[in-house]
C-alpha cells in the first residue's frame, strides 16, 4: 500500500467524505464507517442527517445492486454489518434528538421455517432505510406474531418462508388477523425465494417483496400511502 493510496477520512470535505462512506459501506468496512460517523458528528451534523444522507444513501446503492444481481448475500451482509456499526453510534443520539420515525416493522419467519437469511437481510436493509425493526427470529406461531404486534404497535408486519412446507402458514396468520378484525391496521409484506406476487395476493398480503431492496421500496411506498390516507381521513 503506497502513501498516496491511503485515505485519511478526516481530511476529506463533507461531500467527499459522504461519497467515501458510500464506497466503504459497499465494501463492508465497519470501522471506517464508524470513523466517518464520528467525524460528521464532530463537524456538527445532526444524527438524523448522518443516518439519511450517509448511511441510508449508501445502503440504497447496495440495495439497488442486490436487486439487480450485482451484489449477492455475502456482500450485502457485510455492508449491513458496517451500517449497523454506524447505527450503534447514532441510535441513542437519534432518540435524544427526537428524530422523525420512518416506520416500525415486526418481522419473523413463520412456524417451521428456520431459513432466516432473507428475513435478516430485510431487517438490516429496513434499519438501513431508517425503519425501527423488531425481529421475532425464526419459527413464529400465529400467537407469537399477534403478541408482538399488540406489544409493539408496528406499522408493518413482515413474514418470510422459504419452504413449500411452510409457505401456507403465512395465510394462517393473515386469516387470523382478518378474523380478529385487525388486518387493516397493518401493512402486511411477505417474502421468500419460492414465492411470487400472485401468491402474495392470493393469501391476502398487501405485497410480495422479491428481495430485501424491494421490501424497503415497498415499505416506503405503503407508508406513504398510509400517511396520505391518514391526512385525507
Amino acid at each position, binding site marked *: 500500500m503506497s502513501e498516496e493510496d491511503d485515505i485519511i477520512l478526516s481530511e476529506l470535505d463533507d461531500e467527499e467524505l459522504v461519497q467515501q462512506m458510500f464506497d*466503504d459501506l*459497499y465494501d463492508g468496512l465497519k470501522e471506517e464507517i464508524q470513523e466517518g460517523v464520528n467525524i460528521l458528528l464532530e463537524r456538527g451534523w445532526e444524527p438524523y442527517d448522518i443516518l439519511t444522507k450517509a448511511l441510508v444513501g449508501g445502503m440504497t446503492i447496495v440495495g439497488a445492486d442486490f436487486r439487480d444481481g*450485482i451484489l449477492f448475500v455475502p456482500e450485502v451482509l457485510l455492508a449491513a454489518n458496517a451500517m449497523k456499526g454506524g447505527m450503534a453510534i447514532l441510535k441513542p443520539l437519534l432518540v435524544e434528538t427526537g428524530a422523525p420515525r420512518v416506520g416500525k416493522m415486526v418481522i419473523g419467519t413463520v412456524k417451521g421455517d428456520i431459513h432466516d437469511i432473507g428475513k435478516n437481510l430485510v431487517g438490516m436493509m429496513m434499519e438501513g432505510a431508517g425503519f425501527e425493526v423488531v425481529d421475532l427470529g425464526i419459527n413464529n406461531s400465529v400467537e407469537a406474531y399477534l403478541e408482538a404486534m399488540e406489544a409493539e404497535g408496528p406499522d408493518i408486519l413482515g413474514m418470510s418462508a422459504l419452504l413449500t412446507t411452510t409457505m401456507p402458514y403465512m395465510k394462517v396468520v393473515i386469516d387470523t388477523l382478518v378474523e380478529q378484525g385487525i388486518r387493516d391496521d397493518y401493512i402486511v409484506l411477505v417474502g421468500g425465494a419460492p414465492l411470487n406476487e400472485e401468491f402474495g395476493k392470493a393469501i391476502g398480503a398487501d405485497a410480495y417483496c422479491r428481495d430485501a431492496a424491494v421490501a424497503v421500496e415497498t415499505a416506503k411506498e405503503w407508508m406513504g400511502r398510509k400517511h396520505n390516507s391518514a391526512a385525507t381521513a
Partner: protein
Amino acid sequence: MSNAFTDLLAEKGTLLADGATGTNLFNMGLMSGDAPELWNTDEPQKITKLYRFAVDSGSDLFLTNSFGANAARLKLHDAQARVHELSRVSAELAREVADTAGRKVLVAGSVGPTGEIMEPVGTLTHALAVEMFHETADGLKAGGADIGWLETISAPEEYRAAAEGFALAGLDWCGTMSFDTAGRTMMGLTSEGMVDLVHGLDNTPLAYGANCGTGASDLLRTVLGFASKGGTLPIISKGNAGIPKYVEGHIHYDGTPELMARYAIMARDAGASIIGGCCGTLPEHLVAMRAALDSTEKGPAPTLEQIAEEIGPFSSDSDGTDGNGPTRGPRRGRRRA
C-alpha cells in the same frame, strides 16, 4: 470407483430421479410448519407411500425423507437428538420399497442445508457443519442408502463441508445447489463457478448439478452453463414443476406433466444424465417424464431462445456466465488500497 449408482448410470445412460417430497406430503395431510422427518417414525406408512409414488412412476432413484434431518433444523422441533435415528429410518423405509420394486431402484439419502450461514460472513463454523453432515450421512448409511444426496445448497463453504461429512461417513454422494438469485445461488455462485468448486474437491461427488430454484427454464439454463464449462462428472437436473400458486387452500405448482416431459428431454439434450423434478413434481409429472425420455433419442442442446419459448421465460436476463450481467456503476470516491 464403482457402486450401485455408477453401475446403473452406466447401464441406462440416463436416470430418472424423483419428484417433490414436500408437495406430496402436503397432499397426504402434512401441516404447514411441521417437520416432515418426524413422519418417518410417526406416519411410516405415508412415507412408504411417498416413496412408492416415485417407484411406481418409473423413477430409477428416489430421495429419502431426510432433507431437514440435521441438528440445526431438527432443533426447531426439539428433535436435535434424533438426527441419526430419523435419517436411518428414512433410509430403512426406502430400502424396503426399493428392494421390492421388481427392478433396480436406488435409494438416495437426502441431505439438505443447515439453514445457517457459515463463517466468515455468518457464525456456523466449518467444523460444526462437517459434524452435522457427518451425523446425517452416518444415519443414512446405517439405514441402507445407496448414496448420499446433498441438495438445495447455496454456499460453496457448505458444499465443501458436506463433502467432508460424506467422506467421514464413508458414503458416496451426489450434490446439487439451488440457483435462485439472478441465475446464481443465493451466495452469488454461478453455474460455472460450481463446476470449478465440484471438480476441485478432495472427495468429489459422483454427480453434481442443480435443483429447485425458480422454475424449469432457469434450471435448464444452469445445466447449459455446467455443460459449456466442460466438467467430467455427470450432471443432475431437478427442476420445479413451474412456479407456486395458492389454489383453494394449498400450494399448486403451475407446470403441467406435458411441460415437465418437455423439460426432461431438454435437460438431457442440454447435457444432464440424471433428471428429475423438485417442488410441485407429482407422480403424473414423473410418468410423463419417464415416457418422454424412453421414447426419444438425445438431441442437440437447446438454445436459450428455445428454452424460453417452450418452457417459459427466465427469471433474469443473465445468469452471470455470459459476460452480459449487470455490473456496478462507477465508484464515487477512491478505492481503498
